[in-house]
């Protein structure tokens, strides 16, 4: 089992509840932002020492939810301070961007890191389409065409042009080009069958970003596998990633309390504006096909589900090291995945608590789950 250490880089110093979209940035204090960036970068660098295999960043706009409007800037900094760990961009929000630019930036990261990039091609959560004024109904079409174009930009040895539905270029040959051959490993994520099908089609790794229920996730993974096989790729366990929230302490109640508080802050403060924008997008556009509409709305209620409920479902990691080892084994038995993506910075959980948890993970969890 490989482990990824994921961090949103949230802005945690403005505790007011909000429903506004976009979240007014008068609530952002740049000097505090500077401190947070430095603290978070140090923390993510520490993940390498703790034995994590990947460190992950992702893109969010116009809210305190995450301060990486371009996560590649943070990725570039992490590369300089690490030597072994893979740099997982999970991801760039492909339909919002110029695909050539993504191909170029990912190639820079791959070369800067000597081939340590994991290239996320993500569709993004709905509110980002409001931020960049892109049509949510075009998100799948753009994701598919852009991913193809990016792969072409990485692999085509001769200069080429591209005449597409969404993208047109007449003369492409990117400098630098990536070091990994034939191209950097791609990861795609999805909470819908269509996303799973697309990930399979590209022979990408498949990430379950939100583990709602084992049945739901297994269903998606099956769709992914079928699609991959149909396109000549046979996914191994290490091609499937499952994301889990982790709260770890010597004392089980302490771990639970920490996580409960962090989740509350996440839902009420960091996620408030996002929900407003998501409602707008989901109510009226075809962002998800019709089959997903009801499901996503239900998922938004998940913020209200208690840690105990999640523990009962087995879809969260929370407790003492011994408990977490068992929980991880349980998830692995159910999912058969090869990469676990760990998110410890939930809401405003203090960094010192997180460091303690990371140390416990390194010393008392990792040795028992490496060989899963």
């Amino acid at each position, binding site marked *: 089992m490989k482990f990824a250490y994921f961090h949103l880089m949230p802005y945690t110093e403005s505790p007011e509840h909000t429903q506004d979209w976009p979240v007014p940035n008068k609530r952002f204090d740049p000097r505090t932002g500077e401190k947070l960036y430095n603290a978070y970068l140090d923390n993510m660098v520490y993940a390498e020492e703790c034995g994590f295999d990947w460190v992950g960043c992702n893109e969010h706009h116009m809210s305190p939810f995450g301060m990486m409007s*371009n996560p590649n800037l943070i990725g570039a900094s992490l590369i300089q301070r690490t030597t072994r760990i893979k740099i997982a961009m999970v991801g760039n929000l492909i339909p919002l961007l110029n695909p050539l*630019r993504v191909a170029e*930036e990912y190639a*820079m990261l791959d*070369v800067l890191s000597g081939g340590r990039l994991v290239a996320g091609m993500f569709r993004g959560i709905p509110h980002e389409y409001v931020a960049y004024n892109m049509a949510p109904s075009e998100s799948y079409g753009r994701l598919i065409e852009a991913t193809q174009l990016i792969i072409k930009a990485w692999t085509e040895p001769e200069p080429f042009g591209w005449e597409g539905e969404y993208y047109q270029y007449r003369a492409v040959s990117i*400098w630098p*080009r990536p070091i990994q051959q034939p191209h950097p490993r791609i990861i795609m994520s999805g909470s819908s069958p269509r996303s799973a099908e697309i990930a399979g089609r590209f022979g990408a790794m498949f990430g379950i970003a939100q583990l709602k229920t084992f049945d739901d996730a297994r269903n998606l993974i099956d769709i992914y596998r079928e699609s991959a096989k149909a396109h000549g790729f046979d996914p191994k366990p290490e091609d499937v990633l499952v994301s889990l929230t982790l709260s770890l302490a010597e004392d089980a109640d302490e771990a639970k309390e920490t996580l409960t508080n962090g989740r509350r802050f996440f839902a009420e403060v960091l996620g408030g504006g996002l929900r407003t*924008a998501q409602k707008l997008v989901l109510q009226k556009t075809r962002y998800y096909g019709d089959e997903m509409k009801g499901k996503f709305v239900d998922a938004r209620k998940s913020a209200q589900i208690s840690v105990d409920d999640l523990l009962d479902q087995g879809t969260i990691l929370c407790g003492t090291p011994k408990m977490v080892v068992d929980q991880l084994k349980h998830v692995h038995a159910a999912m058969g995945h090869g990469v676990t993506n760990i998110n410890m910075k939930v809401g405003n959980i203090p960094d010192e608590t997180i460091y303690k948890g990371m140390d416990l993970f390194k010393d008392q969890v990792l040795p028992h789950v490496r060989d899963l």
Partner: protein
Amino acid sequence: MRYSYTHHMPYTDIDRAGQDWPVPNKQFDPQKGVKMFKAYIKDKIYAEQAGFDWIGCNEHHMSPYGLMPNPNLVGAVLAHQTTKAGILQSGNILPIANPIRVAEEYAMIDVLSGGRLIAGFMRGIPHEYIAYNEPPSESYSRMNEAVELIKKCWTETEPFGWEGEHYQFRAVSIWPKPVQQPLPPILMSAASEQSAKLAAKHRAIAGLLALSDMDDGRRSMERYRTFAREYGWEPGPLDFTVGLNCCIAPTKDEAIKILKSGQEYFFGVLGGGIRTAQKLVVQKTRYYQDQKTAKEQAKKFVNMRMGGLSFEEKMECGLMICGTPDMAIEQIHTVHKELGNARIGLSIKIGNVLDEHVTRTLDYLRDEVFPATRHLGEEEAQAAQ
């Protein structure tokens, strides 16, 4: 005198002069790229220790000319790993970018560096428009609108929308926003009349690159002052930065030999494909809005002869810093005396000049040249502030 360090991060392991556009990237060996990136980033960080006030990064696409299609990735690294130097992004090419994205990334760099960003707003050199398939004829109007929009992203305290000619957004409030208030310093090119006018409107530091001679420099600066007065301000010595190539060595002959061979590589190898693309853009589109400017710029860009001059002519007219440390000191005095500027941008990695020679020049600058020239223009600069 304040100094900025310009480094394009060129790919220097090609020896054939191709004329194709784009330059086929099968000539790029990623393993060698890894080494170059490592060396270049180390070098840029070292420039801070050598006493440079600003360290610069800039954007180029699809050629070995420069390996920073998004210079903000390198800017973020520098922001994180240096402590006092200004991070000069010179720049992002606004007309081919999403202005909101530029505002966001620049704000990230400003916050990461604790307020050390110098925000370069550039129109780019013509071939970049082919790379991103944007119409060169729209470059000025996109530039105008993008600058306004980015400044609005940084200064507007309330969420806002933007209904423009080229850009439409309904709900903007960027996170993070910059540390520097009300705005990070802005640097723009003042190379053509149109650019100078726009730069003056935004009270930018005027970048003067590829000057033909001192007269060209004086004329450009006077033109900039005239425009600035129309917008109600008076540029001081710190509002001009003059770009110069630089090589310092124990003997004059060695310095000339190194720089000359570096420039030949630059023009002959790195500039080949770009020249082809530039010809297309400059001759076939309305990238420049009038014929006169087009012709002038075509001479400078298409020939890629640093203002249309030979190496010797350039030395002669004083727009090159090349020779022993003492000569460099004298040359900088001359530039300052002729132009009255208090900022110089030095390009030292010219073409395939060896990294060890670059480091040696940096050491000479730190030990001899900077101490002997720091005072130049400082008094006038203080008075003008």
